[in-house]
C-alpha cells in the first residue's frame, strides 16, 4: 500500500470518498450499461435455444445473475456491517446501508423472473421448496434490515442494530446456495459452479457471466450514488458538507 504512494485510508473518510465516488459513478454506470447490453444481446440473439425448454430458458440470463447478486451483495453488506461493529467505523455502516436496497432489488428480480420461468417449465408460479422459500426469506431479511434502520432515530443505535441483524442473517446465504443439494427440491441444481465444468452450452455461460459482470458494475455505481446521498444526509452539519464542491447534492435535498 505504501509502495503506490497513495494513502488509501484517506478514502475511508466520507469527506474524501464523496468526490471520488462522484468521479467513479459515470465509469461504472457506462460499464454496466455496456455489459448488460452485450449480455442481453448474446443471451437473446446469439445463444442457441434449449432442447427441452425452448426459448423459455432465456430468462436465466437475468434470473441467475440476479440470484447470484442477491447472495453476493448480502455477504458484502454483512462484511461491512461486521467491520463497522468491530472497528466502530461509521463509514462501514454507511456502506452497509447503501448496499441493502440494491440487494433487495436483485432478490426481488430473482424471485420475479423465477416465477415467470416456473409457470412455463414446471407448471406452477410458485412452490414452497427449500430454494424458493430460502430466497424469499432473504428478501424479507433485506426488507427487515432496511426497516429496522429507518425505525431507529439514533443513528449510532440504528447502525449497530441493523448490523447485528445483517450478521445474524448471513447464515441464510449458504442455506440458499446449498439447498438444492441438501434437500429434494423442484428447483434444479447448479449449472455453473467453481468446482465442476458448466453443464450448459458455452455461449450460454458466456452470456450469463457477462450479465453478472454488468450487474456488478451496476451495483457498484448505484451503491456509490446511494453512498453519496447517505453521506450528505448524515454529515449534514460539518462545514464541508455545505461547501460548493457538492452543490448538486445539496440542491437535490
Amino acid at each position, binding site marked *: 500500500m505504501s509502495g503506490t504512494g497513495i494513502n488509501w485510508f484517506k478514502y475511508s473518510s466520507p469527506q474524501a470518498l464523496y468526490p471520488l465516488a462522484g468521479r467513479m459513478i459515470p465509469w461504472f454506470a457506462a460499464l454496466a450499461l455496456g455489459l448488460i447490453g452485450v449480455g442481453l444481446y448474446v443471451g437473446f440473439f446469439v445463444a442457441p435455444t434449449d*432442447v*427441452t425448454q425452448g426459448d423459455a430458458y432465456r430468462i436465466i440470463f437475468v434470473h441467475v445473475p440476479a440470484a447470484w447478486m442477491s447472495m453476493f451483495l448480502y455477504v458484502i453488506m454483512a462484511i461491512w456491517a461486521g467491520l463497522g461493529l468491530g472497528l466502530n467505523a461509521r463509514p462501514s455502516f454507511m456502506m452497509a446501508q447503501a448496499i441493502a436496497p440494491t440487494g433487495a432489488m436483485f432478490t426481488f428480480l430473482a424471485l420475479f423472473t423465477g416465477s415467470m420461468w416456473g409457470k412455463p417449465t*414446471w*407448471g406452477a408460479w410458485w412452490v414452497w421448496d427449500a430454494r424458493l422459500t430460502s430466497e424469499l426469506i432473504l428478501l424479507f431479511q433485506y426488507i427487515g434490515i432496511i426497516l429496522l434502520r429507518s425505525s431507529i432515530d439514533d443513528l449510532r443505535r440504528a447502525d449497530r442494530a441493523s448490523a447485528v441483524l445483517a450478521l445474524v442473517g448471513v*447464515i441464510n446465504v449458504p442455506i440458499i446456495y446449498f439447498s438444492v443439494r441438501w*434437500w429434494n427440491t423442484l428447483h434444479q441444481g447448479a449449472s455453473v459452479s467453481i468446482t465442476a465444468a458448466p453443464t450448459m*452450452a458455452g455461449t450460454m455461460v458466456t452470456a450469463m457471466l457477462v450479465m453478472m459482470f454488468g450487474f456488478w458494475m451496476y451495483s457498484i455505481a448505484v451503491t456509490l450514488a446511494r453512498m453519496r446521498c447517505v453521506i450528505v444526509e448524515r454529515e449534514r452539519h460539518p462545514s464541508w458538507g455545505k461547501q460548493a464542491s457538492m452543490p448538486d447534492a445539496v440542491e437535490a435535498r
Partner: protein
Amino acid sequence: MTPRKKRFVLIGLGLGALAVAAFLVLNAFQSNLVFFYTPTQAANGDVPQGRSFRIGGMVEAGSLTREGDGLTVHFVVTDMAKRVPVTFKGILPDLFKEGKGVVAQGQLAANGAFLASEVLAKHDENYMPPEAADALAKAKTAGAQSSGTLVVNPR
C-alpha cells in the same frame, strides 16, 4: 487484547454459535424440508399417511397412457429402484415427458396407486442446443454399439 480485537472475536464467536445452531435446527427439520418423496420411500411406508404429499422421480419410458376423455392420464414414476403408478386428471405441463423428471402432489390410494391433484415438471440443470442433443444421442447409440463406456452426464 485491544477492545477492537475483542469485538472482532466476539463477532466471530457469535457467528460460530449461530452456524452451529442453524446446523442443529436444519438437521432436526431434515425430513420436513424435502419437497417430495421418492418412490422407494413410498414403498417403505416412509411417507405421510392419510394426507397429501408429493412424489418425485422419472416418468418411466413407455408408461404414459391416456384415457378416452383425453384428460385422465396414467403414468409410472420411478427412481430406478421402485415404481409408483400415478393417475392424474388435468393438463400436464409442457415439459412433462417420458424419461424426464416429474413431481406429483396427491394421495396414496389403498391399492398403492397415487392419485395426483397436481403434476409439475422438474427439469435438470443441463442446457444444450438441439443440435448438441442430437449429436449426443448419436454418439450414445454409436458408443453403445462399440464400447458402451461413453457416460453422458451421469446423475
